């Protein structure tokens, strides 16, 4: 029997990391193809349908960019907290609360305000609501040492139920023929879109600016250095005087806030009202986790991975219309790519070395 040992890999070149990331995507697509094949669907045809749907036409590109907007915003924020090893899986809820904040300001508090002031105010409200929703798990972690994953996950569902409460209850629109959404925003509040598309340009611009800001913050400032130290080696960070609690709180304010901005953007640019949680977000908060991971926690790369996964989401519509499979089919790709990313991360962090006869076979 071959004896082996798992060792920590000391040097990780960027090329090696990128190769592993690309291999993860390729493996995910390969296994998905096998699943399609076993089911009697020509995998080549399915893949071409997906990618032709999202990247093969001008219309496809427009939709792809539209879906990548929230992913860029959320993914950039997640890079920051994930770098500190704070597992925020509550971006979905933070996005929804951002949508609530924007609606509160635009429809209920200041509906009469000049749009030039009100639109920025609604974005700001989205940011603040998302940030507050993100602050809760950060405070619980810092003050009471409560595991953030469960709390952020639970807050997703609390936010979703809260929106349902609003749109079936106090905020139910009077002009919507009894349908469960709020009244529409004033027409002057609809965000300008790229001609004949749903690409709301302002939110896209905000997203790209924040991706750059997050990159700068994370890789070019002392604060970013402290974030990465906290994630890589919390003990060393503590001894060198880094305040972990401050970092987590500030990081979650940004991460939650950006998710909130995404929520405000979605309802200002696309839905023009507060509606069903599943309509506002088709799982952007979860997809952004893959986006950030595949982007190697680099906000600039996140812009690219966001477009890829935005494309996959659009491809889901394509296989629905051309092959008749439900939209959820695309989740097979998301899940598999994420699995292979995890496996790839293992090989980035560790290597398996075969041992010769005289060495002891202890796994480190």
């Amino acid at each position, binding site marked *: 029997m071959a004896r082996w040992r798992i060792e920590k890999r000391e040097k990780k070149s960027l090329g090696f990391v990128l190769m592993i990331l690309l291999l993860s995507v390729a493996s995910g697509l390969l296994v998905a193809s096998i699943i399609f094949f076993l*089911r009697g669907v020509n995998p080549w045809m399915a893949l071409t349908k997906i990618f032709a749907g999202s990247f093969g036409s001008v219309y496809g590109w427009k939709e792809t960019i539209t879906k990548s907007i929230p992913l860029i915003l959320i993914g950039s924020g997640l890079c920051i907290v994930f770098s500190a090893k704070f597992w925020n899986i509550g971006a979905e809820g933070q996005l929804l609360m951002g949508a609530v904040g924007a609606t509160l300001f635009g429809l209920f508090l200041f509906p009469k305000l000049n749009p030039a002031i009100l639109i920025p105010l609604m974005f700001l409200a989205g940011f603040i609501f998302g940030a507050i929703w993100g602050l809760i798990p950060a405070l619980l972690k810092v003050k009471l040492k409560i595991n953030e994953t469960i709390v952020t996950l639970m807050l997703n*569902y609390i936010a979703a139920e809260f929106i349902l409460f609003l749109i079936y209850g106090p905020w139910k629109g009077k002009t919507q023929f009894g349908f469960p959404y709020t009244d529409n925003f004033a027409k002057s509040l609809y965000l300008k879109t790229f001609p004949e598309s749903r690409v709301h340009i302002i939110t896209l611009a905000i997203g790209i600016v924040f991706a750059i800001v997050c990159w700068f913050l994370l890789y070019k400032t002392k604060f970013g250095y402290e974030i990465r130290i906290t994630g890589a080696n919390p003990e060393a960070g503590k001894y060198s005087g880094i305040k972990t609690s401050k970092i987590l709180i500030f990081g979650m304010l940004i991460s939650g806030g950006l998710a909130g901005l995404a929520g405000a953007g979605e309802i200002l640019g696309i839905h023009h009202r507060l509606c069903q949680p599943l309509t506002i977000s088709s799982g952007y908060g979860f997809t952004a986790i893959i986006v950030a991971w595949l982007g190697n926690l680099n906000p600039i790369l996140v812009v690219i991975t966001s477009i890829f996964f935005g494309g996959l989401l659009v491809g889901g519509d394509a296989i629905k219309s051309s092959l008749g499979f439900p939209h959820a089919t695309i989740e097979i790709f998301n*899940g598999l790519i*994420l*699995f292979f990313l995890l496996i790839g991360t293992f090989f980035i962090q560790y290597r398996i070395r075969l041992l010769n006869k005289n060495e002891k076979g202890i796994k480190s």
Partner: protein
Amino acid sequence: MTWFVLIFGRFLVAGTPLLLGTIGEIYAEKAGNLNLGVEGMMAVGAISGFAFAHNTGNPWIGFILAGCMGGLLSLVHAFVTISLRANQVVSGLALTMFGVGLSGFIGNEYVGISLVPRFKNVAIPFLSEIPFVGEVLFTRSPVFYIAILLAVVFWYIMFRTKWGIIIRACGENPKTAESAGINVYRVQYTCVLIGGVCAGLAGAYISLYYIPTWIDGMIAGRGWIVIALVILSQWNSLKALFSCYLFGSIYVLQYALQGSFLNPTLLLMMPYLTAVTVLIVDSKKTLKYKTGSPTHLGEPYIK
């Protein structure tokens, strides 16, 4: 009084899949592994149970194979998180995405078919003749009795046998467990597998009895409720009996309460809110109140 029997019956029907999922997840978590893939495993369980029952004409074959499929999926999670030390949260999310996607993909050709070989209610002799109680509790689908039995057996194993001590040791302090001669990896693999099988069975219960037809997305977030219910039940499958059926009744009542004085969505928020509350209580060690949360939950164990 028949409506009374009817509505209590609905409570029990709605609570049973939650119970099956919860008691399984309790095992995975007690051994120190957090598997957030319950929703995905339930989805695959539901479609494989439906497909196998439909094609073989026997609900039992569907039920058992659904458990196998749930178990198979959970082993992927176990391999990635235990052997490859990957982040359990992310792996669980991947499992949910994959499972939900796969169920929709496979289920496509079964959409709209009403299942013929479904589970029927079985009256237990003598007990079912007790007025009201007999009709509510002892004239149910066989899976209901299995779920109750499993909850009790699982509790007994966890808190009254040596196996239970071994499992809990792995979730509390795997290093110590290992030095006491326990193969931590093997225990964790087994417990994750138990969780997967139970989630698969839970899904099958939904498609073979609760809603005996295939609808894409029919699990509808029940897998996430299970994650909350595990905390709510304080990692104890006897308490799970209570919390799962309580929430099953909330699930049923939401339709009855629509448009009444009490907004049902606020009720639907309850399991998540209470789960967070339990975590807060749990963090206050000074309260000297034990919730049973495993200390080493969510951390990969490195030998």
